């Protein structure tokens, strides 16, 4: 297998790609840049650097999130098409012309600068901001492609046991498990250049002149792009092979499909009802940890915690959200779990006791949040208290009792708003 041909899907897409798609993408990127400038308009100059990083983070989200949602859940035909076409397209762009990247590279700063000049923002600050935005957005895109290519190479080589276990249940065949975490890592890695520029802007603004900001951005991006291009080109045969592996994995008949992973150790030691509910709980939405980390990161960037308790509150918020999404999963699965449990001989009182047991474990972050929030001020305390109440209600809710879930959701929303208001 020394010289694999280029992926047929990629070749077809090259022919099929319309110039209008590139123009449309450039317009969207330019609009994002303009909106980012508008977002800076009412911000105090001292906070511009941090706000620019937050905006860069928001702009950097779509690429890895699209990859996460599109590549890790290809259990139906639509997503398989996504994998076969858009996935191949991304590699095609990375390895060959990268028109979308070029469009983004030009459109994001262009849109930002045009808007900032028309809004009357400081010219030097605007150019620094454009540099941060460009490096964040494009850094995440480049990192996504690089890490995705690496994940595909792992798949092509044969996914090992650790990756298979990480896949869990609900994200398709274990063969594609390495794709699960590539987008998250890409998001974090891609923001590093933007964070460094922001730190320099905050620490020594005189050093980060407009010219130096542009030069640093150009060096980082061009270097990253060249490196990514070289790596993707080198990995092209493996990528093609991985696409075939993935296609084959999804075509695998039922009889050879994935095995249920082992439950967490703490769960294996619990009594029957807790194990039964807990297993369904931990498997239904295995990616919610990533979402929680992402939200914690966004909250950290947006709020900019100044004290340790504030940081703890944000961490607890993310952990609680994680527990809450799992709880929501259990709630949604409630009727089917109740039916299965009754069929197997489970009793409703033991199931309710199991729910309480799980809830106590998972409300620990919420209780910590209350304590931490209380020490950080009345607003934070109130928010954390509401949050704790919401999560407790959500976790204690009887299976399938949707009215309580609605109230838990309202309390949670109020808590989140108070938390941001109190800390911000």
């Amino acid at each position, binding site marked *: 297998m020394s010289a694999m041909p280029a992926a047929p899907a990629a070749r077809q897409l090259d022919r099929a790609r319309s110039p209008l798609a590139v123009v449309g993408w450039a317009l969207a990127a330019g609009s994002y840049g303009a909106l980012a400038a508008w977002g800076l308009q009412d911000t105090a100059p001292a906070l511009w650097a941090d706000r620019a990083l937050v905006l860069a983070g928001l702009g950097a989200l779509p690429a890895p999130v699209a990859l996460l949602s599109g590549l890790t859940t290809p259990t139906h035909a639509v997503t398989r098409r996504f994998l076969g076409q858009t996935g191949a397209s991304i590699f095609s762009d990375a390895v060959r012309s990268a028109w979308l990247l070029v469009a983004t590279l030009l459109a994001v700063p262009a849109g930002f600068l045009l808007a900032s000049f028309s809004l009357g923002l400081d010219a030097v600050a605007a150019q620094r901001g454009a540099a941060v935005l460009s490096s964040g957005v494009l850094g995440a895109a480049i990192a996504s492609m690089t890490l995705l290519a690496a994940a595909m190479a792992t798949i092509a080589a044969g996914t090992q046991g650790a990756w298979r276990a990480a896949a869990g*249940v*609900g994200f398709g065949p274990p063969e594609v498990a390495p794709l699960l975490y590539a987008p998250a890592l890409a998001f974090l890695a891609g923001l590093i250049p933007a964070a460094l520029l922001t730190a320099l802007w905050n620490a020594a603004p005189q050093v980060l002149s407009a010219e130096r900001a542009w030069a640093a951005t150009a060096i980082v991006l061009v270097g990253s792009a060249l490196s990514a291009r070289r790596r993707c080109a080198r990995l092209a045969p493996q990528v093609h092979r991985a696409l075939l592996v993935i296609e084959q994995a999804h075509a695998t008949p*039922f*009889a*050879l*499909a*994935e*095995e*249920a992973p082992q439950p967490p150790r703490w769960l294996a030691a619990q*009594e*029957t*009802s807790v*194990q*039964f509910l807990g*297993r*369904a709980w931990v*498997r*239904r939405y295995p990616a919610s940890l990533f979402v929680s980390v992402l939200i914690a990161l966004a909250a950290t960037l947006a709020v900019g915690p100044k004290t340790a308790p504030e940081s703890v509150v944000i961490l607890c918020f993310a952990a609680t959200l994680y527990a809450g999404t799992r709880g929501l999963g259990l709630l949604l*699965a409630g009727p*089917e*779990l109740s*039916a*299965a*449990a*009754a*069929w*197997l*001989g*489970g*009793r409703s009182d*033991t199931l309710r006791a199991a729910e309480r047991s799980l809830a106590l474990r998972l409300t620990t972050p919420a209780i910590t949040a209350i304590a931490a929030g209380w020490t950080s001020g009345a607003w934070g305390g109130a928010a954390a208290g509401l949050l704790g109440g919401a999560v407790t209600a959500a976790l204690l809710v009887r299976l399938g009792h949707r009215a309580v879930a609605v109230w838990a959701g309202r309390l949670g929303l109020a808590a989140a708003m108070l938390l941001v208001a109190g800390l911000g």
Partner: protein
Amino acid sequence: MNAPLAARQVHKSWLDQPILRGIDLDLAPGTITVLLGANGAGKSTLIRILSGELIADRGAVKVDGHTLGEQDDKARAKLAHVAQSPPLAPFLSALEHAEAMIGWRGLDPDTTLARLRTHAEALQIGRALARPTRVLSGGMRQKAALCLGLAAQTQVLLLDEPYTGLDIRSALALRQLLQARRDEGCAILVASHLAESALAIADRAVVLSRGQLALDLDAAALAAFNDDARAFERAVLAAMDRGDAAGGE
């Protein structure tokens, strides 16, 4: 009532339309009773009432002397019910269902799991036991549920159309598994609309028509058919017609 399962004067209506009209049915230990009837005759409704999943409008069902609805936990612990669409939890494997069943019913883990694996091998789903049921096909889910029901080691086993979706080899294997459970003393009720497969396995056959038992054939009466499935079908159809005529009056 000394039978493992005894139903007396079971009545059930849906929207004022009578479905079951005074059913009396005893299941003897170590027998396979086949419940026959046309589509919509009320077979599934009767099985759901006998399993405690549905509550009868009138009448009583006792399982090993415990009345369903009054001593529900004790009564339901003595029986297993495999419906046409078994309520399997999609994110758990059949093995994990078995572990939960062992815990809740207080079964011996080694014996139960060994039985489960044996049944699964016989029904050709041994490798699927560790997979989440959501990735299994409809037929494999049905087989997994049958394996769980058989492994539960209950005194009463209620099966609703267990042959639906099974290939010939699996259907033969299921017949052998049911006969083995019968020989262990289990009282088995199989709802079916296939007279031929019923004749092959039944120690007793009852025909449900218009909400009433229109025919009740014991082992001797079934033996008289001498494996003549056509003659048995004619007898069943005649009973259904009689039931229809009586219901229409």
